[in-house]
């Protein structure tokens, strides 16, 4: 039988306990309040942070390219060092670690830290370590993560590197303070919060550790990059740069270049190389000032694939190609893509605004009768100038005059591609408004009259004030072949941003592919560079570009390739800064990358035909 009376006793006991608890709390909060406040004020607990292991980074095949190893580090608890025992500790350190200089050891003992780092113990035998911490109270071994980049230079620009955080980074990344390291560039930067992990804590009250929190490792990152393709891309680009240096007299040593391989269907980046590069491991162990300055002077820290701003030259002609077919704007007097103009090597037109009057094609004798296909195939400027002329005649000085610029922006030019890397540059698509703005902000750069017809003539062949990044160009070609301007990404699990969509018909895409195909085949500007492939080149396409630069800089060498016309999988964009002709240098670089992508035998990068 249930006994209500006994339950009452239990509740009574509860009441008595409750009264007891409340009295204790009351005393604590009233009569002891003053004394405890004093204790709290004097308490000053100190926190020592333990760096969390960063997440590791893998390529598309699961191969590790950045790893974090935990290594034992010897620390000394400075609060346990007294005048009496400090010489003992100095001796122990000197005896066990002769590689430490006396100066360094003195530095340790002069420090005001709670815990001071002594030495990495990973190469020290277990017995020695054990002996140190069991016999010497002030020694402490803490496992700290060491970052290493397994492929050294190969991924320098994509992975980035680590460094000691500055004030901005303390504010921006919440774990930066405790970890005392932060991604300075590349994926390490972009995914800092994701990779960093949460630092552990040791709480000191006086010299004793009173509480400890384990660090929580960061998350692993999986990339769409393929290490083998990356390696071939890098080798090919380097060969292209060497070739350019050898092949013609250049005032400047050619060092810089970039190449990107983009997966057409997914928009994932398969490889991304920028030269010159550097070894991110050097930042882990500490890089010398001299070495840093040298790398910096060579602009090795720039990822030219997303930060190099180059006039695109003829690779930009696909924008006008798309515009012509979409708007049905062809050279004066033509109404379809198959009608031909007679290219006599120059075009003269009486601009009444003070623009240049005669435009000379890169081929003085002209290309003969050219239709749109031939204009791409032979990179005929006259045909495109005719289109520009037509735009200018119909829309010049009206709202519609920025037609070409609008088409460019649809393809992502002068906009961020939103790749998952920091510090991406956007480049310039010039128009009347920009020139007006520059008249005020950058006087001297543009002429008094502002935007003229001649500027449009320049723009349509990718010259003049226009600048683009290699990734933008690759992504623009991808957009034309898919109708969707997606953010290209390295992280395979990244959320894709659709920048915008464009209207391209299947018919247009097959026209474009067919015409790109003519470029690498007989009569095309890149034919010589691809001829080594024999009939295998029949399915490959691309577009060459040779962009003139101001001053004494050589031309920028461009090539954008498609690995297959029947089944396009990859876009390959290659730039050799000051590399000269696109068909001669950048095209054979892309050719070698395509050889790898299609599983063909690799042949060295050899000089192609000089065209524009």
């Amino acid at each position, binding site marked *: *039988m*249930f*006994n*209500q009376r*006994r*339950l009452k006793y*239990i*509740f009574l006991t*509860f009441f008595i*306990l*409750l009264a007891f*608890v*409340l009295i*204790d*709390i*009351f005393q*604590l*909060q*009233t009569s*002891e*309040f003053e004394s*405890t*406040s004093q*204790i*709290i*004020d004097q*308490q000053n*607990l100190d926190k020592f942070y333990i760096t969390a292991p960063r997440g590791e980074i893998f390529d598309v095949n699961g191969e590790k390219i950045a790893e974090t190893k935990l290594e034992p580090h010897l620390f000394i608890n400075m609060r346990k060092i007294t005048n009496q025992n400090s010489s003992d500790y100095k001796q122990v350190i000197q005896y066990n670690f002769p590689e430490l200089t006396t100066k360094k050891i003195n530095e340790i003992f002069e420090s005001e830290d709670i815990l001071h780092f002594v030495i990495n113990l990973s190469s020290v035998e277990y017995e020695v370590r054990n002996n140190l911490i069991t016999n010497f109270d002030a020694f402490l071994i803490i496992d700290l993560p060491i970052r290493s980049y397994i492929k050294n230079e190969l991924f320098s620009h994509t992975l980035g590197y680590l460094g000691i955080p500055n004030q901005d980074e303390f504010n921006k990344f919440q774990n930066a303070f405790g970890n005392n390291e932060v991604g300075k560039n590349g994926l390490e930067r972009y995914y800092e919060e994701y990779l960093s992990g949460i630092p552990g804590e040791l*709480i000191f*009250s006086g010299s004793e550790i*009173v*509480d400890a929190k384990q660090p929580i490792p960061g998350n692993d990152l999986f990339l769409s990059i393929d290490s083998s393709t990356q390696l071939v891309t890098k080798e090919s680009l380097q060969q292209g740069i060497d070739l350019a240096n050898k092949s013609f007299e250049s005032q400047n040593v050619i060092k810089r270049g970039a190449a990107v391989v983009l997966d057409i269907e997914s928009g994932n980046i398969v490889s991304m190389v920028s030269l010159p590069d550097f070894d991110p491991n050097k930042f882990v162990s500490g890089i010398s000032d001299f070495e840093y300055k040298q790398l910096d002077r060579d602009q090795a820290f720039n990822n030219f694939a997303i930060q190099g701003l180059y006039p695109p030259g003829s690779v930009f002609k696909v924008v006008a190609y798309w515009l012509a077919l979409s708007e049905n704007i062809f050279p004066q007097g033509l109404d379809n893509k198959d009608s031909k103009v007679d290219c006599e090597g120059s075009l003269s037109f009486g601009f009444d605004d003070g623009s240049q009057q005669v435009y000379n094609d890169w081929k003085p004798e002209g290309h003969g009768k050219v239709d749109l296909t031939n204009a791409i195939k032979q990179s005929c400027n006259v045909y495109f100038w005719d289109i520009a002329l037509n735009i200018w005649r119909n829309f010049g000085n009206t709202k519609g005059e920025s037609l070409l610029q609008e088409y460019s922006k649809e393809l992502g030019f002068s906009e961020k591609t939103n790749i998952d890397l920091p510090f991406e540059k956007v480049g310039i698509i010039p128009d009347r408004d920009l020139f007006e703005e520059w008249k005020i902000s950058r006087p001297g750069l543009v002429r008094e009259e502002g935007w003229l017809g001649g500027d449009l003539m320049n723009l349509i062949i990718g010259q003049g004030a226009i600048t683009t990044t290699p990734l933008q160009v690759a992504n623009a070609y991808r957009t034309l072949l898919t109708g969707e301007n997606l953010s290209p990404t390295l992280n395979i699990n990244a959320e894709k941003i659709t920048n915008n969509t464009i209207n391209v018909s299947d018919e247009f895409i097959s026209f474009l592919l067919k015409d790109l195909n003519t470029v690498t085949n007989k009569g095309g500007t890149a034919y010589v560079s691809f001829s080594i492939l024999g009939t295998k080149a029949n399915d490959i396409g691309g577009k060459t570009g040779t962009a003139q630069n101001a001053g004494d800089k050589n031309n920028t060498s461009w090539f954008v390739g498609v690995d297959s016309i029947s089944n396009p999988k990859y876009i390959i964009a290659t730039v050799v800064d000051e590399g000269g002709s696109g068909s001669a240098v950048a095209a054979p670089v892309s050719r070698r990358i395509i050889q790898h992508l299609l599983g063909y035998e690799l042949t060295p990068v050899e000089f192609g035909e000089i065209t524009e």
Partner: protein
Amino acid sequence: MINRKITILGPEGTNLYILLQFMLFNVISWFTLFSSIESIEFETSNILTRQIVFSLIGIIVFFLTTYLSIENLYNLINSLFLLSISVLLGLLFTAPILGVRRWYDLEPVGLPIFIQPSEFSKIILVLFIAKILSQNSFKLIAILGVLVNLFLIFIQPDLGTTMLLLIVTSLMFFVSDIKLRSAVLGFLLIFLSFFLFLEFNFLGDYQISRITDFFSGDDFSQTQSRLSISSGSLFGTYFTESQITEVFVPVQTTDFIFSLYARNFGFFGAILLLSLWILFFFRVNRIIKRTQIEFEKYLLSGLLILLGVQIFINLLTILGFIPLTGIAFPLLSLGGSSIFSTAIIFGLINRVFIENNIVV
């Protein structure tokens, strides 16, 4: 009574008082946690966001429990008890986390949470004891079952929960009409074996250190929690710009949350919270008196004892009177398992109220 109309708020007649009090306790917990974080972000790592999500799920659990009639529950108890024993047995085959086998890690199936089965087996144990007591004839096998249950929690090892359940079991037997002499004898016997186990070093090192730390009289977290409570003064620091530096208390948002609460809301806050619990106890006690069904009497008093003992063990730990136990303060501490199990307790009580036609 069984054919109640089902509404969105559970079967007709959810007791508003119980529901309100459940939500009030949750909200108090949110306010307490709010003071310990810097910002509200909707991330799973943010403790306040977590707790709010747990609370909302808790309310669903509360209602789900209410759907189960006492009669059906009564018939389910034996199966539930067997299930609870097997789940606790299963823990023995898991990899230890932080040196103990106390949680199921649901990471492999894609959920970023740990489940602590002992939180739920507590309630099932109370149900089971209520059933065997209301049957008025003890079967040896039933008593053995209770002991196995305690033993399985003891070897996790989880000293705090074992102590809690030992006291709850003893008190539940105490309110039945068994002879005082045998009650005391049984109680002593079990306690004796408990300390014998201790003596034979059956426990992990860290638990020994918890106990020895306590006897050496300077457990850091308990010292700190007393300081934290003291800094709250009469009215707390929540509504005033605090002059006093914050006090570092390890695991303050979980087991030691009352020290944070008392700092924030002071002595009057402590009185308020504990008064709410007293009110709750009075309210439930009235039903214990009113209902004619033995099982319901045992069940309600068992659940009250479970809640009460948890609260006291928690308070006495925080004030440093007993060693660290790892017992959470119901509905105040951060943690999903604790909220869900307390939601079940409130849901069960609510169902008894409904079946006795007490709605407000």
